[in-house]
């Protein structure tokens, strides 16, 4: 698999796995309006991941030696790859926990996506530039929405503050990975197809600090950063997610409805 395909799959997997997590809230949101809000955001995410998977499938099918294999489709990439083949970062596979944890996870990820897509709009790869331009508008709203919730909860009642701080403490160890470039990300940066993730860290941190300050939340100090997701080494969470996500296609191959 070439580096571009690996990178596009990484983008697609990030969104698909977060979609599956957020989707667990559907019908269970704390209030009707927020149930709709989080599922709306999730629909944006799955839309973006479909764009990436379709692009990746095209790349795979046009690559050397593809003629002998079953052609890849967005479905086969989502439903028939194994855990170690998924390149999503660890943050998105973490459990929903309570509303505070879901919001915090969304905020940390949306802030990352915001700065990533902002730069990727100017990619030398036309396909990625196009997807990023559309996604950037969506993600701008995700960031606004999740920032406001982090502030509301962090600077809310004693209980909401405590829960949100716990969520930050729990999730912070998975944030470092986003900014550590893998081989495929280094290659993309060299070819000016995507920004080097380490270059996004400063703006991301600035945004997070700004929101946390208003939310009266503390960034944990000296946290050991867990990594591996982008290279296929996941936390135990991903196995459970894929079991549910892929069950139907694996049990009834090719099932449609």
């Amino acid at each position, binding site marked *: 698999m070439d580096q571009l395909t690996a990178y596009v799959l990484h983008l697609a997997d990030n969104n698909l796995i977060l979609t599956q997590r957020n989707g667990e809230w559907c019908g269970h949101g*704390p209030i*009707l309006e927020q149930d*709709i809000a989080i599922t709306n955001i999730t629909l944006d995410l799955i839309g973006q991941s479909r764009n990436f998977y379709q692009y990746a499938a095209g790349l795979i099918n046009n690559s050397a030696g593809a003629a002998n294999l079953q052609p890849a489709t967005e479905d086969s990439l989502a439903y028939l790859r194994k855990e170690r083949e998924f390149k999503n970062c660890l943050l998105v596979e973490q459990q929903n926990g309570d509303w505070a944890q879901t919001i915090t996870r969304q905020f940390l990820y949306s802030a990352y996506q915001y700065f990533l897509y902002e730069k990727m709009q100017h990619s030398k790869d036309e396909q990625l530039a196009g997807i990023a331009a559309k996604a950037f508008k969506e993600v701008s709203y995700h960031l606004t929405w999740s920032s406001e919730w982090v502030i509301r909860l962090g600077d809310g009642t004693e209980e909401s503050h405590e829960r949100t701080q716990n969520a930050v403490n729990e999730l912070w160890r998975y944030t470092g990975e986003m900014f550590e470039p893998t081989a495929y990300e280094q290659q993309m940066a060299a070819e000016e197809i995507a920004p080097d993730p380490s270059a996004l860290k400063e703006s991301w941190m600035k945004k997070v600090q700004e929101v946390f300050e208003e939310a009266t939340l503390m960034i944990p100090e000296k946290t050991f950063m867990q990594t591996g997701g982008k290279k296929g080494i996941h936390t135990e969470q991903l196995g459970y997610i894929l079991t549910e996500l892929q069950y139907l296609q694996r049990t009834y191959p090719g099932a449609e409805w």
Partner: protein
Amino acid sequence: MNIQIKKFYYGDFGEENAAGNEPAKNISSKETWPLWEVFIRSKQGLDHKHAGSLHAADAAMAIENARDVYTRRQEGVSLWVVESKYIHASNPDDAEALYEPANDKVYRHPTFYDIPDEVGHM
């Protein structure tokens, strides 16, 4: 977070809640979020039309909720929200006195004029 929702309808409010001078006091209420009415302008040049209502803790959240609940299918280009308690409604019991007197005053409709074809729809 356990939010208990109490659904209010027009006219459910006592006079003490209906007056427009007090800012929303129940923002900090742990029991309920206030109800908001949503108005959407579907395109430039048209009026804002009432679309429905929703719950939100404050105006910023009400706008966001309105965006998520009522404009998902490109229904609008502009949103207004107003807390429901600031809307004063006519009393349905007064309907007879308020509206029926207009019944037999057909001369208030411009139906007694011949409109030239060139004018088109009026």
